[in-house]
């Protein structure tokens, strides 16, 4: 089981202190264990970010709301039910708001690739 920040530290580290970041425990290693919830969670988020690194949105930044939607989808990809994912994504949005990050604001950082081992 690994702790998993809902508001990714690599994205929000300058705004939300790592130790204050909401986290959820997920089974598996995000880098080396394909098909585990933690790996699938990050695989989903990596797809989201890759659009801003090399894809059609290259150079742009998503809004916090768009990140929130991607987070919800990643939680579902990690095996949570729709209701659980919606609830956690809402908590993450509330925390972002508490740190002054509006839904329409652009995210401060696009994280680098995490280098997941291929299945």
């Amino acid at each position: 089981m690994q702790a998993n920040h809902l508001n990714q530290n690599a994205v929000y580290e300058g705004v939300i202190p790592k130790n204050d970041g909401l986290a959820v425990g997920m089974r598996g290693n995000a880098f080396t264990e394909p098909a585990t919830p933690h790996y699938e969670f990050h695989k989903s988020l990596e797809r989201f970010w890759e659009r801003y690194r090399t894809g059609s949105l290259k150079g742009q930044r998503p809004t916090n709301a768009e990140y929130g939607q991607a987070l919800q989808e990643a939680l579902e990809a990690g095996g949570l039910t729709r209701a659980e994912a919606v609830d956690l994504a809402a908590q993450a949005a509330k925390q972002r708001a508490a740190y002054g990050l509006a839904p329409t604001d652009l995210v401060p950082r696009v994280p680098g690739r995490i280098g997941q081992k291929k299945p």
Partner: protein
Amino acid sequence: MHPRTIATLEQLEEAEWFSHVGVKDTTAAIVLSSWQEAIEHCASDDWQGLCLEATNQLCERIVERSKERFRKWNEIVDEVKGSTEPFVLRKIKAVVQEHNLPPVFEHTVQWDVLHVCMEAEYADVFPPAYYASQAYWYVKGHFPCGWQGQFPKGKLLIY
């Protein structure tokens, strides 16, 4: 686009890109010896991660100074890409064809030139730095494509 950005693109337009690749005419960077090496380096997660981090740093400095201006980031990216994408395609066409260079080469150059322009667009908020120094090597006829060592220690790799 801001007149500063237009002037930057004009400077890049006047330069003969890739005219000095492989020429060891500097001690300020390590000059690679082949396109193969250059492509391996520019395609690496390390180099792409470093360039992405440079962009993140730029964005963070802009947010610190003007949230209002940063909100226009995507709008400006769209506008600038309208000019830089065809411009880069035209400038790299010959070298891509001659050396059969892969798509990652175009991606790297597009990314660099886009962000040279983004630094120019926001130069009144935060002074151009990382990508302006990349532009210097394009103007000199080289291709900046990697880093040797642990950034910021170490040295730039160019072809």
